[in-house]
């Protein structure tokens, strides 16, 4: 059995699970949800007719039809394109987004031997190697961590990798041998420069509050050590509201969608993928939607408690508990005990639900706001977001310093 658990804990297996079970279906469904939601916002019905026989499901199957169409469409490569880079660009756009998912914690650590009983968090902290005397197995052994790549530079790794995705757009624009595509690629680069600085600095406030850049530690730690990490007021949206708004703005620019869809700009230049067709275009399209899922997952992880369910500690629901300042385990208060497997299931579902809600919020923004002009985006990025992000860092650092001075004296 422990071999099975070791396989389940293998990063590639976890990555396959995350991408195939969570990200790809969610991104594909978003293509349908976007058309459907935008239609509903504009007093239309949207796509609701794709069906397999009598199974209609309100048109959800449209994404299957779309995928089939794109796979079987002619893969047309125009004359004069740079064939190598033309083929490479969609991969460059899609791959970094899938890689960046490695740092996202999408669920709690699962202890397979303790699945059918309530987890004892105090025991977990004080004696991780505890062996159950009746069965003779290490209770907390063979742990499956629901995060592919956990490192202290997690958020920086995400920035580094996701910035590479921009090469996809720029190279596609250059390789296409098309003036409109080139304009789109250049716009994509210039847009990236406008938001990337503010985006990174917006998360630095969160770093100052939690003291870590490891997304898993942000989720399990919360903003204050005197509160349970599952308490909604301990999540960073309350402690970094300015940082959240800045990051939200910058992340919409990151996904290249309205109001920051300048690289595409359908009515003017169509965008860097104007010469692409079939599944190559589909890869750009999918990358865009996976980016939506990804930035939603980052926002959920950093600002909305990740996989934490409100008031759900590792051993069950607890309201008004007291947190031990050293072990960070809450006790007392109103308490309802739950099995470990059920808690883990709830927490994984919470992550999915929060991500979906934030994705829908991004769709709402995309279909509400008109497109910015290029210079307006530059003004916004450099003259508004950047100073605000810097001010946010200064104020956060100042408050933190004063807090330290008060608590230590």
């Amino acid at each position, binding site marked *: 059995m422990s071999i099975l658990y070791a396989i389940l804990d293998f990063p590639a297996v976890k990555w396959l699970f995350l991408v195939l079970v969570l990200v790809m279906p969610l991104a594909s469904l978003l293509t349908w949800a976007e058309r459907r939601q935008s239609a509903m916002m504009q007093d*239309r019905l949207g796509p609701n007719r794709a069906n397999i026989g009598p199974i209609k499901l309100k048109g959800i199957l449209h994404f299957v039809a779309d995928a089939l169409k794109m796979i079987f469409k002619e893969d047309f490569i125009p004359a004069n394109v740079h064939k190598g880079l033309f083929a490479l660009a969609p991969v460059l756009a899609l791959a970094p987004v899938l890689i960046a998912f490695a740092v996202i914690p999408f669920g709690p650590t699962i202890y397979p031997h303790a699945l059918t009983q309530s987890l004892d968090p105090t025991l977990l902290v004080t004696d991780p190697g505890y062996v159950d005397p009746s069965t003779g197995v290490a209770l907390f052994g063979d742990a499956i961590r629901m995060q592919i790549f956990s490192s202290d530079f997690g958020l920086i790794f995400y920035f580094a990798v996701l910035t590479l995705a921009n090469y996809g757009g720029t190279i596609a624009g250059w390789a296409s041998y098309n003036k409109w595509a080139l304009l789109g690629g250049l716009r994509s680069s210039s847009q990236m420069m406008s938001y990337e600085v503010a985006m990174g600095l917006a998360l630095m406030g969160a770093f100052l509050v939690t003291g870590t850049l490891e997304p898993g530690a942000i989720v399990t730690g919360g903003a204050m050590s005197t509160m349970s990490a599952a308490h909604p007021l301990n999540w960073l949206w309350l402690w970094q509201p300015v940082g959240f708004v800045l990051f939200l703005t910058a992340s919409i620019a990151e996904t290249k969608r309205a109001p920051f869809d300048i690289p595409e700009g359908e009515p003017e230049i169509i965008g860097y993928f104007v010469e692409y067709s079939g599944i190559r275009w589909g890869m750009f399209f999918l990358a865009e939607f996976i980016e939506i899922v990804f930035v939603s997952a980052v926002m959920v992880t950093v600002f909305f408690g990740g996989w934490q369910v409100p008031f759900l500690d590792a051993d069950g629901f607890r309201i008004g508990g007291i947190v031990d300042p050293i072990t960070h385990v809450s006790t007392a208060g109103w308490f309802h005990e739950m099995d470990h497997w059920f808690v883990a299931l709830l927490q994984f579902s919470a992550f999915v639900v929060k991500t979906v809600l934030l994705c829908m919020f991004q769709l709402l923004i995309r279909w509400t706001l008109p497109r910015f002009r290029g210079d307006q985006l530059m003004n916004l990025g450099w003259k508004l977001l950047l100073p605000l992000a810097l001010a946010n860092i200064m104020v956060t650092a100042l408050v933190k310093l004063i807090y330290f001075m008060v608590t230590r004296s």
Partner: protein
Amino acid sequence: MSAHDHGHGDDHGHGGAHDGPAAGPVVLSVSDRHPRVRTIQVVRPGFQDTTFLAATAKGLGITLKHFARNLFLPMRKADARSKAGAPTDVSFRNEIETVQYPEEKVTYPERFRGLHRLMLRDDGNVRCVACMCCPTVCPAHCITIIPEESDNPGVEKRPAVFEIDELRCVVCGLCVEACPCDAIRMDTGDHAKPVEDRANAIETKESMMGRGIRSIAKQGGEGPNWRAHGHESSKNDVNR
């Protein structure tokens, strides 16, 4: 010529400025030598507009209201959706305008020109006498008639073949206007069906007679004029 144009433009500009503040920018001063050179008051966007936050929140509220309403409330009846200007503030109904076509159909107006039909005589034969008026007047050349001798001694000719290519038809209704004996009408209230093969778009004599009913008009102008109460009869025909 050019001077005259300038003068005209000036007059217009001054008139606009004096009409009210909404007519244009506020003019602070006008140059003496070049009256078109003016100093105007520039309206800079305020703090709310430059941060975009208030406008964004307002816009999100509007779209979210529409989305929630259309998501949770039941739809209006198809008739209310199909009519432009139908009241949208029906309580507990959403604002979706889409008519789900094959399942829901809009009732066409009474004078709608639709699919052709051939009218019948009292004895069930086709009313057409193959006078060739309709293929002559047809601007799209979509009507094909091959005449033959009629069995009926009172009728000279009848169509052996009467075909209309609905793909070429421009639905102008001139054939109905041209017909001297009320043999062809376009009042079926239906339109040409989509087809998978072009040949299937050709309406034959039989298919058009299948939609036909007996005309109350007498040939040669005798009997009651159907046009006099054509409104009533045409309505009944559609319902049949």
